[in-house]
């Protein structure tokens, strides 16, 4: 992945979140405080603006800038979590230049670890982690299996990650929340899809779309 692909991914996330903002907010209305779409949209609108104004650095710079922007502009639970994930992803990548698929896999895992460390959630808590963890697993596996592909397995890994994130997102529905605002509802959180897991899926979906479209 090069810097322009990284940018394209984040722009695609911004577009996707903007389009889904109302839906995300409505998911949050059911088990939270009706602001998740607003938060994510504010954050990725700021990311877009930051990237527009930033020099065309390497992938590391793109992701750390995006992560810092989310941390500084979103607030709530999602700002620090998604922001720290992107920042950790960036910091795991080479100081200069592009990242190969294996490096990206390691970076995504570093992002997941940052989320788990900051938020203390484990799989099954009905959070971002429930979409993010299976996505990283799937990304790693597919990256290894498709390392011989012309693109180093990036497209296959991204697709696998997006599918796994989607499944993880859906699997949050029957869960009772143990972290975040939804946990206050106790049993009433059962039967609703987690907003943060949904955003996580949108992010991986945007990755898959970006690297697929851009495969020459």
């Amino acid at each position, binding site marked *: 992945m090069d810097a322009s692909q990284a940018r394209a991914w984040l722009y695609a996330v911004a577009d996707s979140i903007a389009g889904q903002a109302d839906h995300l907010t409505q998911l949050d209305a*059911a*088990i939270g*405080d009706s*602001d998740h779409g607003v938060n994510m949209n504010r954050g990725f609108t700021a990311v877009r603006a930051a990237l527009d104004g930033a020099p065309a650095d390497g992938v590391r710079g793109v992701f750390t800038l995006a992560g810092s922007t989310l941390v*500084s502009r979103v*607030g*709530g639970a999602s700002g620090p979590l998604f922001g720290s994930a992107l920042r950790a992803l960036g910091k795991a990548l080479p100081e200069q230049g592009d990242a190969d698929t294996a490096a990206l896999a390691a970076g995504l895992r570093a992002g997941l670890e940052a989320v788990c460390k900051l938020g203390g959630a484990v799989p099954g808590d009905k959070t971002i982690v429930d979409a993010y963890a299976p996505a990283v697993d799937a990304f790693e596996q597919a990256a290894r299996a498709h390392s011989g592909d012309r693109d180093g397995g990036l497209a296959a890994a991204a697709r696998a990650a997006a599918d796994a994130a989607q499944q993880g997102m859906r699997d949050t529905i029957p869960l009772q929340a*143990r972290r975040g605002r939804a946990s206050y509802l106790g049993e*009433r959180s059962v039967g609703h899809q987690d907003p943060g897991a949904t955003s996580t899926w949108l992010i991986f979906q945007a990755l898959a779309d970006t690297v697929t479209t851009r495969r020459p």
Partner: protein
Amino acid sequence: MKKFINHPDAVVREALIGLSAAHPDLRVDLDGPYAARADAPRAGKVALVSGGGSGHEPMHAGFVGLGMLDAACPGEVFTSPVPDQIVAASRAVDGGAGVVHIVKNYTGDVMNFQLAADLLGDGGIEVQTVLVNDDVAVEDSTWTAGRRGTGATMLVEKIAGALAETGAGAAAVAAMGTRVNEASGSFAVALTACTTPAAGRPGFELPEDEMEVGVGIHGEPGRRREQLLPARDIAAMSLEAIMAAKPVASGEDVIVLMNGLGGTPLIELYLLYGEVAGMLEAAGVRIARNLVGDYVTSLDMAGMSLTVCRADAEMLRLWDAPVRTPALRWGV
């Protein structure tokens, strides 16, 4: 959605402009954004900084001033502030005696204040944190996000703020805040949902004959939905939940906060207070101090929260100490 606003995105900023115009004792930084005491930093005084999502007014900016907070960081509506603004506010009011953050126990608030404290620590400003988690509707468990911070936040801010005014050190101020929190329990009931400017519609629909029991202050649904009951039964249910989690013995003193969530007429809060006062009296508990009104709100939600704080003599003395803020003022 019917609100006195110009645009959903501009609500917090434009309300801060009004706050600034209304209260010359405050210095409002619109870029932080934060609201600070105009006379801060005060050399040698521990600085109290609080913050949280907007929509709970007068909390927190309404509690900035002599004897209470040095600064408050308003986030977007129902969204915790970001680390940058907490850092900016803390730096602006730091008088060299340390900074105490008062943080309500929500995932977002905890994480953003933690990131800010880390950044401040890197810059040489030591931060003590008081975590407020008084809402007994939620079970206290280390395996979940735990109890929410609600009405007791203002008691913590008042009492710790009064102690800070005496020149006490940061550790002592934080310890007092924690003591007040531990002595406090809250429980809330809502008759309607609230509408955030951004969402534009109520967070949930509630039939004419039902209420949400065990709600927080962010318009979220409560622990359960029940048939609407007379005020007396709602008062009893709330008081029992608090007493079960934070027992108060006969003969002890308490501070009672009968708080409106924003859309409840004061006449109803007084009526509820009368019920609570009668029950506490019957239990031999003495209401040493009380507040009845809208202090910790949830936008336009019709609802009430009850907070009971078992107060010792030192807390009561600090409670009575002078306070001069937009929303709480006495003795000066």
